[in-house]
């Protein structure tokens, strides 16, 4: 069994930096993360690295980072060495158009997609399945390295048409209930829906340990839940619309503090 190196991620640091950053931002910024919509018990669950269930996945991801895989027999660590250094800031600026990959050149990918590109092209291993424990573990481990950082989407002009498409998706009505994301998360954020507070919908904490799932999950999974909630057809797992929407959401959350891996109800 590997022992998670808590090291720099002590309880005090995590609690102080996330809370202080969101408090400071709250003074002038009307935006707030879903963290602040939760009660004190769940916030405490997220803040304690030794009690946050998401950290079980981070621990698994940390082990996978060191594990050689594929016909290239390479581990993530062989190229990227210490994730705390090499992955710092990565989750805060994704989705992005990856440099130096062959498949789907010019298309933006989310963090899971980028990990799978490394997996297939560099490690020569089969891609990890969506929402599989391995993919979630690696995503959580990489995202953790950006915890406390401000969300800073890449200023790549090639991303603009995809981001614009995402903005269009966010604002267009769909499904049997004929609702757009904006109807709930802009117009009615803070109000109650079925006893739950409607969050503003900023993806600051992904991948999240969602209590509803009783496990860790990606933003894609959460967006699919929204589509089901709106009684709309869910998009296939590899549909580029998810990435377009995430591009818009990360831009909308620009400057907010990343608090991955988060706990959410």
């Amino acid at each position, binding site marked *: 069994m590997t022992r998670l190196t808590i090291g720099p991620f002590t309880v005090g640091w995590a609690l102080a930096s996330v809370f202080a950053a969101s408090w400071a931002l709250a003074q002038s910024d009307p935006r707030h993360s879903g963290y602040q919509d939760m009660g004190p018990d*769940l916030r405490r669950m997220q803040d304690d690295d030794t009690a946050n269930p998401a950290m079980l996945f981070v621990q698994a991801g940390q082990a996978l980072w060191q594990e050689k895989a594929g016909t290239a027999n390479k581990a993530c660590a062989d190229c990227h060495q210490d994730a705390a250094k090499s992955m710092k800031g990565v989750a805060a600026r994704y989705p992005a158009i990856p440099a130096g990959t062959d498949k789907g050149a010019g298309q933006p990918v989310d963090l899971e997609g980028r990990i799978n590109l490394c997996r297939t092209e560099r490690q020569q291993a089969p891609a990890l399945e969506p929402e599989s424990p391995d993919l979630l573990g690696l995503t959580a481990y990489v995202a953790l390295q950006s915890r406390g950082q401000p969300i800073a989407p890449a200023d790549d002009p090639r991303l603009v048409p995809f981001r614009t498409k995402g903005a269009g998706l966010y604002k267009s009505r769909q499904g049997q209930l004929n609702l757009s994301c904006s109807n709930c998360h802009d117009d009615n954020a803070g109000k109650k829906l079925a006893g739950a507070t*409607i969050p503003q919908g900023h993806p600051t904490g992904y991948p999240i340990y*969602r*209590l*509803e799932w*009783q496990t860790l999950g990606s933003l894609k999974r959460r967006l699919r839940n929204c589509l089901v*909630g*709106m009684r709309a057809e869910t998009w296939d797992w590899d549909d580029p619309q998810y990435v377009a929407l995430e591009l818009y959401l990360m831009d909308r959350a620009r400057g907010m503090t990343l608090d991955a891996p988060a706990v959410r*109800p």
Partner: protein
Amino acid sequence: MQRRAFIAGFAVTVLPIAAAATPETMAAAIKQVTGDAAVRPGRVTLDIPPLVENGNTVPLTVSVESPMTEADFIKAIHVFNEKNPQPHVFDARLSPRNGKAVVGTRIKLADAQKVVAIAETSKGEFFSASADVIVTIAACIEDIT
């Protein structure tokens, strides 16, 4: 920080398909532990949020005042619920070696209901505390049902 839940008028519920426990089932389960002994209120603190955002994972801590010496210690903490499919939550065994009779965990609650904690002392006495918890669910989930 002590927290006692307040009784409220309504709750959103998610009931499993199997039959649910009832206050009677919970009482019977408690009686199996306490027998005919008196169960007195006091000494036990049940720390549980009064309003739960998701019944799948509810943080809960039971603390019992006790000197925790060989002469007088808490030897068990039993927690029960009244509306889940079965009435037990957990049974913890303690000894003076624990120093403090405090146990924390996370539980599942299927519905708004009462949660009861019973502490058993080495002298054969029983003390209890209860909390009423409202359980809500998330609005956008995976299943249409």
